[in-house]
């Protein structure tokens, strides 16, 4: 009996550890030193949808839970990435062009950042990185892409193309 318990505990520990580790996502960066702008991915998550529960006290004192949800188009998932975008070459006049920052899947398809991802802050992805043109300095925060669910488990790469060079960051799951 005691041995069974120990086995069970060991299994549970192993299982929990596996779950925890499988939830951690890392990334592989291919820095290109010639780029004016360097991008670093500090985290990323793939979400079928976003949800948040807000506890709201009613006029009579009772509380209700108000659910907020945000879903991508059917067949898609959200790819939410936390980045640091830093201007390496302070002598350069190049600004950061968001149109050149795309996510590529293994089949060669490219995806642009959502035109409106201000909802991220409602789901605690704070701060969200601005979508305005960047001119200098270090800029960091979350941004959101929408990609087909079918490519979400395959190879995904964040690519920034500028000044005839490219920076690729493999988003490793």
């Amino acid at each position: 009996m005691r041995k069974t318990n120990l086995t069970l505990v060991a299994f549970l520990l192993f299982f929990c550890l596996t779950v925890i580790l499988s939830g951690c996502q890392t990334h592989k960066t291919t820095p290109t030193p010639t780029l004016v702008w360097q991008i670093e991915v500090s985290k990323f998550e793939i979400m079928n949808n976003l949800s948040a529960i807000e506890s709201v006290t009613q006029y009579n004192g009772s509380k209700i839970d108000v659910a907020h949800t945000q879903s991508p188009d059917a067949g898609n998932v959200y790819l939410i990435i936390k980045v640091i975008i830093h201007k390496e070459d302070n002598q350069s006049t190049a600004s950061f062009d968001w149109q050149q920052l795309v996510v590529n899947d293994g089949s060669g398809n490219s995806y642009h950042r959502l035109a409106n991802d201000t909802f991220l802050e409602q789901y605690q992805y704070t701060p969200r990185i601005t979508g305005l043109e960047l001119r200098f300095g270090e800029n960091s925060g979350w941004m959101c892409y929408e990609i087909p669910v079918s490519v979400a488990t395959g190879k995904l790469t964040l690519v920034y193309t500028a000044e005839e060079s490219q920076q690729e960051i493999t988003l490793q799951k």
Partner: protein
Amino acid sequence: MKQRIFYIIVPIIIILAIAASVLFSGVLVMPTKATLANATPVESYDILEYQYQRELNILSDYANGSYTPQNPYIIQDPYKANPLSALILFETAEPAQVTATVIGKNQYATFTYSMDGFTTHHEVAVLGLYPGQKNQVDLAIIYQNGQEKKYEQFLQTEPLPYDFPNLAVQVSKPEKMEPGVDLMISCLDTNYTYMLDANGDVRGYFSNKNFGHCTAMRVLKNGRLLTTGDVEKLMPYNMYTLWEMNLLGKVFVEYEIPNAVHHDIIELDNGDFLAASNNENMPLGYDTREDVVIRIDRQSGAVTQQYDLRQILDDNRKPYNHYDPGVLNAPNRDWAHTNSVAMDEGDNSIIFSSPIQSAVVKFNADTHEIDWILSSPEGWDGEFSQYQKYLLTPIGENFEWQWGQHSVKILPDTAGDSNTIDILLFDNGQARSYTQANSINPVNNYSRAVIYRINELNRTVEQIWQFGKELGSGAYATFLGNVEKMQLTGNFNIDFGGMLRQDGVPLDDIVQSVIGRQQVQSRVVEVQQKGEVVFDVSVTPNNSSDAETYQVRKMDLYTAAIQYLLGDSKCQRKGDVQSSEPTSYNLPNFFIPRITLNFKQIYQQNGNLILQGSFLYNGKSYMLGKVLFVLKNKDYQYIFAATPGLNGNFAARFDLNDVQPGEYAIYVAGGVVNGMDALGKVNFGYNPTGYKIQVK
């Protein structure tokens, strides 16, 4: 058997004794190397330094290139303050004057501005971009020989934030409206201050919600906007600082006001400010609040006069109202809630509005002698009968008293009678009675803008204009709001600022809304004197409980405040900084891990630690009894008291000048009260905040 018990009991006693000695030695609440290593450092931040450095960074980046009118340097949201603004920089070979035009949906929404003088270096401010679209900005370059060249630029902006209020325009007749934009001023730090054009489109907003709330923003004679800054003395709107700023978000001057400013501030003829304020020891060292009017010297920033309204009115008078949160044994009372100040420089007198007293009072600034009280005669008998001689006698038809009023202004004389003074105010109409028994239910109530003509010689008051009663309870605003008469058209801009609604039904519970438990919406109406509505917009919440509008102010989008050069001069700080010294308190020798903090602000500035946030006890918000922050390392411990607010909110500025240099872990200790009696049973907590601070 006894021996066996002895061998069991003695070790247990020894273990318990060791545990107790460890527990009560305080060693458990000492920061360890690991505590400090894992804690988040408190960053240094000073908006004046930050903005100056940002200007230098822009100039440095600009210096890398060669920019012309065809290919200018564009930086959007240059101060990270108004995302619908930009700066365009370039050089011209010959001196030229630049005119910028932001193309709008129609002529009333198109904004044009010309920079002063002819120069070769140009820094052109762009205001009034639309959100979430590509905006066309035309630059007209006029040279001294009369030659003119035009260039088009296109600026893509971001959509509005997810929690930006919904705006529903019911009426828009731009050709009949006062030119300019409506500055929609927020009341709480959960809403935005933004600008609307004549079509009701958003053309600018401040992304920083921590400043400028619940205080009139005024356009000064120098074209700058005067508003409260971002350092809170008492939640939710008593602010230590005032800013002179522009619509790009640049702060030119920060005034430090130990008394804190709330609700209203005006510029006097000589440039000084008059503000609704407090005794400087409020809130922890004084028993009332929001009952002092102060005068601020513009040059030094010092408070030069304090008019204590308790010397003018009896603070024991208690009309029925909905401002009072009903806290028993509260540390200070809000008997006046002064929300408007005006100065009659003709006879050197001050007019203030107390919505809680439903009274507007004029008194002499030198003698403090009351001139008159504009108020219903209800409640001025008995122990308050000494004030009856100041009450005005109503005359004329359709006269109605004001209740819970806001925004009192002196209008220019149109009667041609030196004995009369015309007073414009926003009559919220709260309760419309001194007593609860006779109070009007909100579903039958109304709010309105009203002009009273007061004959100071005859001691009479006449109602000569009103608008709003005809809107019924649909525009009833229990609290907030303002009205202004505009110069060019003579139209009135009216803000029905705090409309409490549940399922569309009007309510009166202000406190529930202020602590975020009740939705609040608003409505802004521009009306001609004859009663024709030329603009009507409803503001409702969107992913937030707040869509209040503290005040509306029509203003030019482009004022002289955008004419300056980046990095030209460092912004100034004036006045006297007030911050809390360390205090003493017997803290437990072990942690009681019950407290979670959500910081809205935590930073160091010029030897002070500034904090603002909310406090959860066991995951829930309560009325706060005491909030202490403890800075501790192995050698020293300093305890500071923050000012508690309703619903677990707190604010603080701690003086670190006497704190020994070193690294400190920051802990929080505090008690919450279950219920609404400040002296009720206190539940205490004490645990790390997860932050550390380096004191130099």
